[in-house]
């Protein structure tokens, strides 16, 4: 899948300038996206997202915690992404690498900043006890476009999740679930890569090696944007920013319409 030869990289770039891709997709064309929910019975919510050969799992677990002193009546969420060693030959288990941290934080911000979760409703007792939502995202097979895949998996797992209940002696009953998480809307994360004025969506692993400049856009049902992050070691112009923003918002609408009715 990954051809490490320099030739491949140059070949990919030459084709993109002509508006072509090696797998004959258009520059803004996605591979097939599949979203399955409820894939792990032990999780409060879970989702498996495949985009082409890329496979990502996300699971939601809940626990109780003390709220932060500055938001004594709000629940908390923590999102992290991890590359499983099985996901690619170059992944190895160990402390979280920069790329994993950024992946987790970008997905986290897209969800958090969209304010789609009503954290006030996750308060059990002000100042004392709130629900803590863990979103764990695992990359099982890496064939590119992890930002889109992880963002979709996270929001799909959150929307799939049911609330656990508290027993009389205040322990959590993970079997007896009741109602969904308080979520409104579907924030979606889209990575748009750019190369000499061309904009490319859903890059596979080889393309991702060749194309590093990108912005990742988290946007909402109403077309607003709630998070933005540029990655890569090349500068981009203001015009490119505006174009890529528009492309990301439009693309998120299509995906939302198709996969989250």
């Amino acid at each position, binding site marked *: 899948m990954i051809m490490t030869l320099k030739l491949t990289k140059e070949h990919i770039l030459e084709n993109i300038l002509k508006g072509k891709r090696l797998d004959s997709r258009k520059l803004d064309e996605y591979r097939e996206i599949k979203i399955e929910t409820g894939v792990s*019975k032990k*999780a409060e919510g879970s989702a498996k997202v495949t985009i082409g050969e890329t*496979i990502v799992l996300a699971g939601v677990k809940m*626990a109780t915690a003390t709220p932060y002193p500055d938001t004594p009546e709000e629940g908390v969420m923590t999102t*992290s992404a991890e590359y499983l060693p*099985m996901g690619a030959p170059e992944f190895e288990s160990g402390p979280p690498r920069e790329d994993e941290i950024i992946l987790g934080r970008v997905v986290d911000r897209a969800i958090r900043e969209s304010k789609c979760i009503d954290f006030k409703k996750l308060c059990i007792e002000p100042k004392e006890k709130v629900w803590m939502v863990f979103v764990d995202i695992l990359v099982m097979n890496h064939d590119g476009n992890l930002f889109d895949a992880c963002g979709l998996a996270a929001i799909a797992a959150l929307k799939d999740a049911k609330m656990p209940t508290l027993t009389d002696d205040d322990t959590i009953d993970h079997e007896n679930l009741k109602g969904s998480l308080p979520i409104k809307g579907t924030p979606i994360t889209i990575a748009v890569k750019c190369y000499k004025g061309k904009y490319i969506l859903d890059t596979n692993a080889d393309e991702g090696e060749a194309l590093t400049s990108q912005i990742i856009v988290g946007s909402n049902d109403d077309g607003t944007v709630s998070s933005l992050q540029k990655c890569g070691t090349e500068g981009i112009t203001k015009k490119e920013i505006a174009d890529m923003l528009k492309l990301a918002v439009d693309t998120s609408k299509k995906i939302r319409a198709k996969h989250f009715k």
Partner: protein
Amino acid sequence: MTKSERADNRKLDEIRPMKMKVGVIKRADGSAEVEFGDTKVVAAVYGPRQIHPRHQERPDRSVLRCRYNMLPFSVSDRKRPGYDRRSTELGKVITESLQPALFLEEFPKTAIDIDMEITQADAGTRAAAINAASLALAHAGIPMRDLVTSVAAGRANKKLLLDMTKEEEDAPDAIDLPMAMMPRTGKVTLLQMDGIVSPEDIEKIVDLAEIGCMKIYEAQKKALHEKYRS
């Protein structure tokens, strides 16, 4: 009580519904997904390949390295990511259960890495992981003396049982004996046990586990055939 009286209506020597699928992780050299009831595991193999860190390299053989990992949401109370003592132990005993089937001396200075990820845990995760790893090794085309096949047998509520569920494991008199073997030679490559029992009963439970392994062996071979037929 009749023989079929288990909470899930299985017979005493009946294995939970199994699913086995070979070739689920495209980037890996070999992979498989295995389900036993509500227990699910994905295993993937990379190798033989160059070994990092280099000081682990052995001049006369390949080094088999197995990682057993539960995903954070595979259990009721979220499991913190990262190694713990249990997963370290299981990585080691699983390595020792698979190694007898391999010809490591044929691949000197390399590593064979197996990553086993428990995506849903309901008893028998180490046996499921071994079965999946064994399929993934075969799928990777790594030469093997035999498939390694594994199941737990044990006792609950005074009955000897095959492939216990979490519920059965929680019985007050429960004993749990995970075993792995190479069916062709009958050699046992993993054997662990917890719980008070007589040596005579251990022999009976080992016999029961052997019966289970034979059934699983057939299922493994079928899964491999299906992969290569398609």
